[in-house]
């Protein structure tokens, strides 16, 4: 379980995150939703210690997160973070080199799944393929938790479909996924849990099925309530 308690973050005098607390469980897909600039990415970066926080705590399975535990949890940013001069294979080798949790078989499966050629240079890849390689590098790790920042932003429809299908496949099976998005189209049926963020605070935290069952509202309905 990823437990985020009372995260606070200031940029200068602006409080971007005032009080963010939520939980994301293993085996579930949790989605952080908010309009652009609301600080979703900052939360993920804060969890991974990529930006300093002004308060709060992050615990993974009850223990604080240290860099040695990046074998258990990984972060897939919204851009591919490999050097453009590297080939896909070199990128994969890099990961294999540094992570014990790298799963070569799954990596190969993912290559086939995404239909990507190993020999291609990253600088030659299309935008969609870059996004897929980015997913691949994170998904091929045998980690318990996956954080993804805007996995569908700015990619073409077909790539989007392919990446979407990842979430209902065995590739994220039994793992905890925490992702951010500002647009839920096509995606609503895949999410277990939604955390709505507005004005630096968690406004709603709910399971989608429960929401449908008890209040008969879709996620978009709730969003509409919150943001209008």
């Amino acid at each position, binding site marked *: 379980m990823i437990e985020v308690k009372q995260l606070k973050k200031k940029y200068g005098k602006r409080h971007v995150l005032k009080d963010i607390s939520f939980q994301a469980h293993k085996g579930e897909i949790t989605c952080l939703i908010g309009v652009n600039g609301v600080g979703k990415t900052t939360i993920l970066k804060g969890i991974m*210690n*990529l*930006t300093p926080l002004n308060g709060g705590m992050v615990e993974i399975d009850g223990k604080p997160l240290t860099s040695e535990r990046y074998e258990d949890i990984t*972060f897939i*940013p919204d851009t591919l973070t490999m050097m453009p001069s590297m080939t896909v294979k070199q990128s994969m080798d890099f990961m294999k*080199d540094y992570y014990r949790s790298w799963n070569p078989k799954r990596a190969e499966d993912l290559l086939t799944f995404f239909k990507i050629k190993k020999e291609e240079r990253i600088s030659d890849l299309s935008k969609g393929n870059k996004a897929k390689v980015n997913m691949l590098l994170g998904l091929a790790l045998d980690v318990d938790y996956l954080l993804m920042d805007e996995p569908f932003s700015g990619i073409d429809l077909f790539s989007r479909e392919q990446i979407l299908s990842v979430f209902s496949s065995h590739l994220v099976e039994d793992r905890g996924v925490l992702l951010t998005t500002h647009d839920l189209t096509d995606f609503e049926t895949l999410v277990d849990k939604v955390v709505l963020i507005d004005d630096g605070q968690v406004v709603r935290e709910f399971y989608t099925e429960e929401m449908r069952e008890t209040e008969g509202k879709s996620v978009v309905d709730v969003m509409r309530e919150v943001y209008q």
Partner: protein
Amino acid sequence: MNIFLKLLAFEFNRFKKGYLSLIGLTFTIQGVGLFFQSRSYLSKVEMLKEEGVSTQGILSQLGHFDLLNYTYSLWFVAPIMLGIVALLFYSVFIWYRDWLGKNTFIYRLLLLPAKRMSIYFAKLFTIFLSVLGLVSSQYLFLHVYKWLIPLIISEEFTQVQSIAQVIEQGAFMVFLFPKTLPFFFFAYLTGLMVLMVLFTLILFERSFHLKGILLATGYAGLSLFIYFSPAIYQLYTRIIFANSETFLWFSIMGIVLMGLSILVSNFLLTKKITV
């Protein structure tokens, strides 16, 4: 440790092109310079000979052409300067390149399952080993030039010098090869210390941006103060230290600054860094 070694090799190979071309450039420029300088020397000798000047006369006018004199020519010094400037530049660029562009590689590095100081030390020793490699190759090149000169210049117009003499008296050399082994360690560890302070300054900037520049300036001032505090004490009190004591004090202050820089850098990298 294992990840540190991998990262070191990775960073070192990233600098491979720059590093090898610096070595190549040094040898090329110095070699070409040696060729031109000796040719122009020989043509002057020929001219004087035609005028009927004796060997002694020529020598008193032109002097010998030897390795020691050659080290003072721009051909020899320029590549060394270039190397120093390039390495200084790369000491800064080695950090900023990971933040540059769309593919911010620093994400990848910071997310590695290892102590983040491994990144710091990998970059530190990449620079340090490049310096040592460049200086060592310069040493070998000196031997090559020593062997080349008698092939170009006839015996009467040149003189055999030992490499040690050239290093002791030649331009720049005493900074690259301090006189004795203890001073070699002293000088190069001081260089390493300076590099560590520089890295800390960069991390300040990377963590706090504009405010970081101010903090970095403060840290640079503090470092200067700490390092030269024995000297300031000496100047202020006019008390003289024995040389061994001076040496000891500078060493202690160097170690203190190294320790401080490691502590501060570790703090910045694990607690304050922003991507």
